C-alpha cells in the first residue's frame, strides 16, 4: 500500500471453497429423535411421487458448517465493522436488543393463524407500532403488510389507483422526478401506470413550473422523495401538494429518506397523501445482506378505505383483532400480516429512543452529513450548492480529468477500510458520489472517512493508475461482471 491508512490493515483471512466441495458421504450435522409412531412404508404411501435421491445436496459435519459460514462472514464488510456511507440506504447501527426481543419464544413461535385470543401480544405490537408511525408521519391510517420499500410503493400506488377508480377514473400517468430511485418508475409500471418524467430545476428540486405545465387530469399522482436523492429538502413541497390536489391528483412520498425528518417535520403536515417507510432504513432493522425489509404504507383518511386486508382494530370488548370485511380494499399484497419480526425490531428502536431520542437522531444524522460536506467541499466537486439534509452528493468531475471515475474512487475507498458510498446515483448528477453517514457515526469515524477521501483525491493527482487498479488489499479485485452476465453460471455443478 502506498499510503498507510489509519483505519484498516491487512490480515490473514481463511480460504474457503463451496460447501459442496467439502461434502462426502456419511458426514452429518443433524440428529432426529427416535420415531415415537410406527414407521411408514414410503413407497406405499407415496407411490410414484416418492423421491429417492436428493442429488448433489451436501453432507458435512457441524464444525465444518460453523467454519464455512464464519469464514464467509469475514469476507463481508458490515456496519459492525465501520461506517457504511451508502446514500439513501441509511445504514445505521442495528441495536442488538432488537434481535433479542424478536427471538423471545412467544413472539418467534407465534403462528399467523393462531386464534386472536392468544394473539393479543402480537396484535398489541402491531397496534403500538402503527400508532407510533402515524404520529411520526402525521398521517391517518396505515398498513404494515408490505414486505419492503418497493412493495410499499406498489401498495401505495394501488391505493392511489383504487381511490381514483372510486371517483370514476383510474387516470393514466404517474409523474416521477428524474432524481428518483429506480423502484419508483418500476413500481408505477407494475401498478399499470405510464411513467412521465419530471425534470429537476438547477437547484436539484422539483421544477414547480414544469410540474404545473405537466399536471393534468390524466395524472394520478406524483411520486416524490423528500428530502430527495440529492439530500435536498423540497422547499416548495406545499406548493407541489397544492398543484397536485387542485387537479385531483395525489402526492405520494417515498419515505426512503425519512431519517432526515423524524420528529422534525411530518409529511402529513406538508400535504402528502400516501407514503411508505422503510423500517430497515429509518427504524434500524438490519439490512441482513439485502433483506428482509418492511415497507409500511401510511395514508390520509381519503385513502383509508382502500388499505389491504386485514387491518388491526380494537373490538367492542377492548381486545384487538383483525378486520377482513373491507369492501373497498385493494386486497392483500402479501400472505399473513407482513414482516412481523421487523415490526418488533422497529418498535424496540422507537422505545429505546422516545420523542427526545428520535429528535436527537435526526439532528445528528443531518449534522454528520453536513460535517462531511464541509470536510470534502473543494476536494470533490459539489454539483448543487443547495443545503444538504442527511446526505450529500458530490461528483467525480475533478478526478475525471485524470481519468478516475466515481467507481474507481469507490473501489479505492475499500482499501481504506470503508464501504463505498452510493455511486453513479442519482442519475441527474454525472459521476455521483452519494454519501449518507447516519447518526450512528461518532466524529472520530467521520474524520477517518474525510481523511481517507482526501488521501484518495491526492492519490488521483499523484498516481491515477494506482487508484484505477484498486482495490489492492481485498481477497479478490475487480470481478469480471461481463463474463458473469454473458455466460451465466448461477449454480455449482459437480465436475465430470
Amino acid at each position: 500500500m502506498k499510503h498507510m491508512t489509519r483505519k484498516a490493515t491487512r490480515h490473514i483471512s481463511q480460504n474457503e471453497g463451496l460447501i459442496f466441495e467439502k461434502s462426502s458421504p456419511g458426514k452429518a450435522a443433524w440428529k432426529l429423535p427416535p420415531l415415537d409412531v410406527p414407521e411408514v412404508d414410503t413407497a406405499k404411501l407415496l407411490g410414484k411421487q416418492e423421491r429417492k435421491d436428493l442429488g448433489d445436496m451436501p453432507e458435512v459435519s457441524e464444525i465444518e458448517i460453523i467454519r464455512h459460514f464464519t469464514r464467509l462472514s469475514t469476507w463481508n464488510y458490515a456496519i459492525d465493522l465501520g461506517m457504511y456511507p451508502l446514500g439513501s440506504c441509511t445504514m445505521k447501527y442495528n441495536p442488538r436488543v432488537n434481535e433479542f426481543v424478536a427471538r423471545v419464544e412467544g413472539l418467534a413461535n407465534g403462528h399467523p393463524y393462531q386464534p386472536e385470543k392468544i394473539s393479543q401480544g402480537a396484535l398489541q405490537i402491531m397496534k403500538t407500532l402503527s400508532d407510533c408511525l402515524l404520529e411520526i408521519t402525521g398521517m391517518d391510517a396505515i398498513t404494515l403488510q408490505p414486505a419492503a420499500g418497493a412493495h410499499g410503493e406498489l401498495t401505495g400506488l394501488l391505493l392511489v389507483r383504487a381511490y381514483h377508480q372510486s371517483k370514476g377514473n383510474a387516470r393514466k400517468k404517474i409523474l416521477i422526478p428524474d432524481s428518483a430511485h429506480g423502484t419508483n418508475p418500476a413500481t408505477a409500471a407494475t401498478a399499470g401506470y405510464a411513467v412521465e418524467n419530471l425534470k429537476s430545476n438547477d437547484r436539484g428540486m422539483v421544477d414547480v413550473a414544469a410540474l404545473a405545465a405537466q399536471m393534468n387530469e390524466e395524472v394520478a399522482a406524483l411520486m416524490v422523495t423528500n428530502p430527495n436523492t440529492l439530500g435536498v429538502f423540497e422547499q416548495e413541497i406545499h406548493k407541489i401538494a397544492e398543484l397536485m390536489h387542485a387537479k385531483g391528483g395525489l402526492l405520494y412520498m417515498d419515505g426512503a429518506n425519512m431519517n432526515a425528518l423524524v420528529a422534525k417535520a411530518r409529511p402529513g403536515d406538508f400535504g402528502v397523501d400516501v407514503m411508505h417507510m422503510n423500517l430497515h432504513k429509518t427504524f434500524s432493522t438490519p439490512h441482513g445482506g439485502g433483506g428482509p425489509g418492511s415497507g409500511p404504507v401510511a395514508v390520509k383518511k381519503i385513502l383509508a378505505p382502500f388499505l389491504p386486508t386485514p387491518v388491526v382494530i380494537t373490538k367492542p370488548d377492548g381486545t384487538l383483532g383483525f378486520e377482513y370485511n373491507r369492501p373497498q380494499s385493494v386486497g392483500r399484497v402479501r400472505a399473513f400480516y407482513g414482516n412481523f419480526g421487523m415490526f418488533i425490531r422497529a418498535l424496540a428502536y422507537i422505545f429505546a429512543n422516545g420523542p427526545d431520542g428520535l429528535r436527537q437522531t435526526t439532528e445528528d444524522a443531518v449534522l454528520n452529513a453536513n460535517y462531511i460536506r464541509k470536510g470534502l467541499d473543494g476536494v470533490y466537486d459539489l454539483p448543487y450548492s443547495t443545503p444538504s439534509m442527511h446526505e450529500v452528493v458530490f461528483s467525480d468531475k475533478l478526478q475525471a480529468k485524470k481519468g478516475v471515475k466515481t467507481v474507481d474512487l469507490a473501489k479505492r475507498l475499500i482499501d481504506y477500510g470503508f464501504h463505498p458510498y452510493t455511486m453513479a446515483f442519482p442519475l441527474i448528477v454525472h459521476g455521483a458520489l452519494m454519501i449518507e453517514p447516519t447518526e450512528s457515526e461518532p466524529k472520530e469515524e467521520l474524520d477517518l472517512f474525510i481523511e481517507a477521501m482526501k488521501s484518495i483525491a491526492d492519490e488521483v493527482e499523484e498516481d491515477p493508475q494506482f487508484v484505477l487498479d484498486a482495490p489492492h488489499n481485498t481477497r479478490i479485485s475487480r470481478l469480471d461482471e461481463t463474463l458473469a452476465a454473458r455466460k451465466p453460471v448461477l449454480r455449482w455443478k459437480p465436475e465430470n
Partner: protein
Amino acid sequence: MLKAIGIRSVDELFSPIPTEYRLTRDLAISRQMAESEIVDWFKQRAKENGEGYTSFLGAGAYFHYRPVVIDALVQRGEFLTSYTPYQAEFAQGTLQAIFEFQTMISELTGMDLANASMYDGSTGAAEAVMMAVRVTGRHSAVIARNLHPEYREVLNTYATHQAIPLKTVSFTDSGQIDLKELETAVGDDAACVLIQSPNFFGTIEDVEAIAEIAHKRGALLIVSIAEAVSLGIVEPPRTADIVAMEAQSFGVPLGFGGPYCGVLATKEKFVRQMPGRLVGQTVDKHGKRGFVLTLATREQHIRREKATSNICTNQALVALMVNIFMTVYGKIGLRELAKQNLAKTAYAAGQFSKHAKVLFAGAPRFNEFVVESSEDPYAINSRLLGHKIVGGFPLKKFYPELKNAALWCCTELTTRSMIDKAIDAAVGLVAESERSAPRMKETEEHEVAR
C-alpha cells in the same frame, strides 16, 4: 462540529424546511425506555401470544425444529449488518452464500436455476405468473382453487392491475385439482397454470399430468410449494417451468407470519425473464474465482419502468437461515426429516379416522390432512384451547362448502402423546375432571377461533 461547519446551532441545518412545517413539540409517543424495560415489555407481549401452547396449525406456515447453529451464524454482524452485495470485493461472504443457496434450491426443486429470494411464497407466486406472461406473451392465467387462499388473494391484487384475467379450477374429492375441468379451462390465451403441491389440503398433485395439459396448450406450469420439507421425500415438480417456493419450513421461525423466504426456480431458457437478484460465478482480474450480482439488466435500478419487476430488497438474511438449514440436514437428513413428518401425519390421520372423517383420502399426502367432524371446528378448537392446544385450521372461511372441515398439520416436533391428547380433547373423550381448564362461553367461540 458546529464550528467546523460554520453554524451556531443544529437548528440552522433544518432551515430548508419551511417554518410552518417544522415540528416544534415532542412526538406523542412513549418516553425513552431502558433496555431492561424494552425486554420486559416484549416478554409481556410474548406471554399474551400463545406461549406454551401445542399447535396443529400448518396452512402455509410450519413449525419445524431450527438447529441452533442457524441463529449463531446469522447473528454474526458481518451477515446481519451488511448491505446488498453490490460491492463484490467487500461482500464475497454474502455472495458465495447466495450462490450456494441458489444451487441447493435448484437441486431440491429439480429446476436448472433459482434466484436469491423473493419476499415470500405468496408474492413469489404472483411474480411467477407475471413472469409467465412475459415469457409467453399471453395475458391470462389458470389457478388451482386448492392453491393457498391467501396466495390467491395476493395474486388477484397483482393481476387486477396488470389486467391479467384469472380462471380458477376446482378440486375433486381426492383434494387434487380437477383435471377435466383444467383441460377445458386452459385455452390458447393462457400464459400459465398455477398449482400448489402439496396443495393447501396437504395432498400431493399429479404434476406430470397437469404439466401435460398445460404444455399441450402452450402454457407454462408454475408449481407453488408452501411446505419445503416435502421436497425431502416427495418427487420435485421436474416437469414444471417455474417453481415458486416458500422456504419458511427450512429454519425460519413462524414469527406470526414473517419475515419468510420466497424463492423462484426455473429452466435456464427463462432466466432473463426472472425477477429478483441473481448471483453468478466469475473470475477477478487475477483469474481467481469470485461471485457477483449478475444479469442486473433485468432489474429496476438499471431498467427503471422496463424492469422485470419492481423488487429491490429481498429476504437475504432469511435466505441465509434457509441455506444453513439445508446445509445442516443435507442429502440424507432432509429425507429422514421428511420421513418423520410423513410418519407422524400418517399416524395422526389414522387416529382421527377412528372418530371423524378424514377427507381427500384417495391421494397421497405429506404432513397435512383434512378432518371433517360433525361438530363445528371452531367449537372443537375453543375446547382444545382450554387444554392449551391449538387445533386445526377451520376451512370454511375460505371454502364454505367444507363446512365442518379443518386442516391439521403434524411435523417432526409433534409427539405421539400430543396427537393422542388432542384427539381425546377434540372428540370429548377426556374425563370431566381433566377438563378443569376454563371453558369459553359459546358466544366467544367464533371470535376466539376466527
